[in-house]
């Protein structure tokens, strides 16, 4: 018995029917074709499927699609594209924060979630915030550096504005 839901994904509203047992991650991947969100486990352990739900990071394998009814979802595709990279994406690139790339979308989404809550996290806070995302390639060092790099880059314009006395947004 399908259920009708309405959900805004990466800014675009989608309305339609889904199976009640469909997990949010499969709705995103199979129904919407947003395959940047990955599946790496079956116990909500790896974090490869992390997306933002109303701005907060969630593991999209832990939610049903029907639970996103009326909410907004941001996937890695909505964080930024090649022409408009988000500072976190740029930082992962510049700091070599990825190798095989499979955990990367979830890792970037989790980092975005952290930096909007805490614009200047310590190394320990970064490691803690990313503890729900497993990476098997990097040993995490360059991921931590990428998040520090992104944090500095995202703070910089504001400091620049403060320096010149421009009004904060």
């Amino acid at each position, binding site marked *: 018995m399908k259920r009708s839901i309405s959900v805004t994904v990466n800014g675009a509203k989608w309305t339609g029917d889904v199976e009640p*047992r469909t997990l949010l991650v499969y709705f995103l*991947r199979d129904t919407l*074709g*947003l*395959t*940047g*969100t*990955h*599946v*790496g*486990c*079956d*116990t909500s*352990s*790896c974090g*490869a499927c992390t997306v933002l739900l109303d701005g907060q990071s969630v593991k999209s394998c832990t939610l049903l699609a029907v639970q996103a009814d009326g909410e907004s979802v941001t*996937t*890695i*595709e909505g*964080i*930024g*594209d*090649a022409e408009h*990279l988000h500072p976190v*994406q740029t930082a*992962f*690139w*510049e700091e*070599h924060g*990825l*190798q*095989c*790339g*499979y*955990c*990367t*979308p979830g890792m*970037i989404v989790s980092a975005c979630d952290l930096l909007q809550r805490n614009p200047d996290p310590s*190394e*320990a806070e*970064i*490691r*803690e915030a*990313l*503890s*729900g*995302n*497993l*990476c*098997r*390639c*990097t*040993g*995490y*060092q*360059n*991921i*931590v550096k990428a998040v520090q790099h992104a944090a500095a880059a995202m703070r910089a314009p504001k400091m620049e504005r403060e320096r010149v006395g421009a009004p904060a947004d």
Partner: protein
Amino acid sequence: MAFTSMMGARVTRREDPRLITGRSTYVDDVKLVGTTYAAFVRSPFAHAKITRIDVSAAKASPGVLAAFTADDMRNVGDVPTAPQIEGLKVPKHPPLARGRVAYAGEPVVAVIAETPAAARDAADLVEVEYEELPAVVDLERAVAGAPYVHDEFGTNIAFTMEINGGDTESAFKNAAVTVSERLLNQRLAPVSIEPRGMVAHWEPGPQHLTLWSSTQIPHLLRTQMAVALGIPEHRVRSIAPEVGGGFGSKLDVYAEEIVAAFASRALDRPVKYVETRSESFMATVHGRDQIDLVEIAADRDGRISGLKVKILANLGAYHQLLTPAIPTLTALMVPGAYDIKNVAVTLHGLFTTEVPTDAYRGAGRPEATYLIERAIDLLAAKLGMDPAEVRRRNLIKKEQFPYASAVGLTYDTGDYHAAFEKALQLAGYDALRKEQEHGRSEGRLLGIGLSSYVEVCGMGPSSALPAPGWGSATVRMEPTGRVTVMTGASPHGQGEETTFAQMVSDRLGVPIDDVVVLHGDSAIVQYGIGTFGSRSTAVDGAALYRALDTVREKAMKIAAHQMEANVGDLEFKNGKIAVKGNPEKAMSIGEVAFAAFRGLNLPPDVEPGLEATRRFEPPNFVYPFGTHVCVVEIERATGAVKVLKYVAVDDCGNIINPMIVEGQIHGGIAQGLSQALYEEIVYDENGQLTNGSLLQYAVPHAGQLPMYELDRTVTPTDVNPMGIKGVGEAGTIGATPAVVNAVVDALAPFGIVNMDMPCKPERVWRVMSGHDGETNEKAAKS
């Protein structure tokens, strides 16, 4: 080799834009019209006879197209294995179990349906009756005799290998000191974050199979699929799309790949299968799993005269592609970085009722390094010497290279002492020892661990491998001056799209953005052996180097003709082929490429086009080396191990991109450290996997790993024209014993000289408590 600004530069990766934006295509992202989905019924028992299979209810389930058993696949070949070891016993290994199962998780029935859910639901309706047989999980019992995994062999010993170099018996007879220990090298799961997956697409019109697979070896997979399924090889195309990590576990040909292709041909529909993480734990190859008995003989000054090693290697139930070959690499590397003239090794490869082991990052060499590095520390403890000094006295000296090891390998180049001293200096070793002494007086449990490794990689000479070992590359200049490279490597995170483009930019003088590196598709790329054994740059990179040479030579000929000059009067400089002393008279490689394409005004003996395919057969392996220093502190109350410092000085010869090399070492150390502290696969006495999920199997998260301090020495190899060794596995190989040596060193006040991995808090606490009592507690504090 010329070092322009490109070589040795920290060029950011050209792979990354698609990966950081979620715009890449992994196997599970491949969507074909009419795709069907496979689900597997797997054995719940470690060892059993199959007495009845009933698929009728599954077949009647909604959306189900077929349910296949071994009976349906009589004409399909076995899951292949490559090693040709003398006397090796090779059990039958049908893709779906035929009459019996030999590990829990072995595929028995494949259900194909219109949706993954329909397939999974129907798989639960399949009825299989089993008659249980005894499990075989204990290596020391398995080697002793019955029960057998494969009754037809009358033994669990799949093969025995003996290596004797020098006169070990005399060395032990005349030794002033000997030490011996039984070391466990526990079973690990590789856990690439992308599980295994595949899409098989049989097209009945052209009679053609395309297989997308998360594989490290697309061409070898294609050959093996053709053989197993009886499809002419030129009608099989194998594609490794974006692959989310492998670490050796995807250096294989799996039952599910054969079944998916068989099913696609039977149904004339695409068939997709992506394993769940739980299935991955039970049915994707594991790594390590040895019991190593090591004995070392030395004089009173700590100079080692002899080494005896007995290896019991757990092969699991069947031979996957390289299963029996992995522990032979252990046998060949037991002397490590030390000048030991007398070495005797006995290796038994043993069948058990567990999922097969095969390559996992390091593949046989981590076990060798672990046993020799632990043995060195045991010797130091027995002699009351500093373990650093024991290493210093036994490391092979620079002037001994090329070094013929007692077990028959020839180490190419090295300066082991240089890397060793650099690591000690970087770590501040002497100060650390003082800090430790002071800390101990305050009751702190500080430990310092060393590991000086050498490893064998750049797999490798074809004559020394169970598969071909050469590399291949094509360089094609397009009419517009762009460069297309096709490499026989199949990178899945290692970054060759970038490092190989750096090589092209360096050698042809084109901007790196004008280069694209293609890989992983048998319809596009000439035969390639794939990415494993830290081989891609040392072997396929060397083939690329040769192909670039060939292109340069032809370009010079064409340019000479076009500019009416002699080839000898030209030079290739700053991206131009110019007449020496007359830089105005010059052509770019792009202009030469267009001339070669247009086919006008070419020298009479030169064919149109500017393209070369070359191969490189390495004359030897390459031998990276280095020294790792780990400092830990143990919390007395909990047994928790905290890594305070991790220093690694590695030498992988010349380097194309230090950023990528450091990334490989970081990840390598993480996996080696994780074996030391966190990970172990545990089968119970019935052969049941007890921790087959990411909730139970401890893949470390960011909070459980330290920062790594890296430095390097550079000792080029003479095995390939670039002087490059491998780096993919070195970190893993070096790390594990450094960490365990540190933990054991921290526990020295308790009189402890050895403990088994992983050194997880509970185990460390028990070890401390077992030797505890008030006396030791006081001793630790005094």
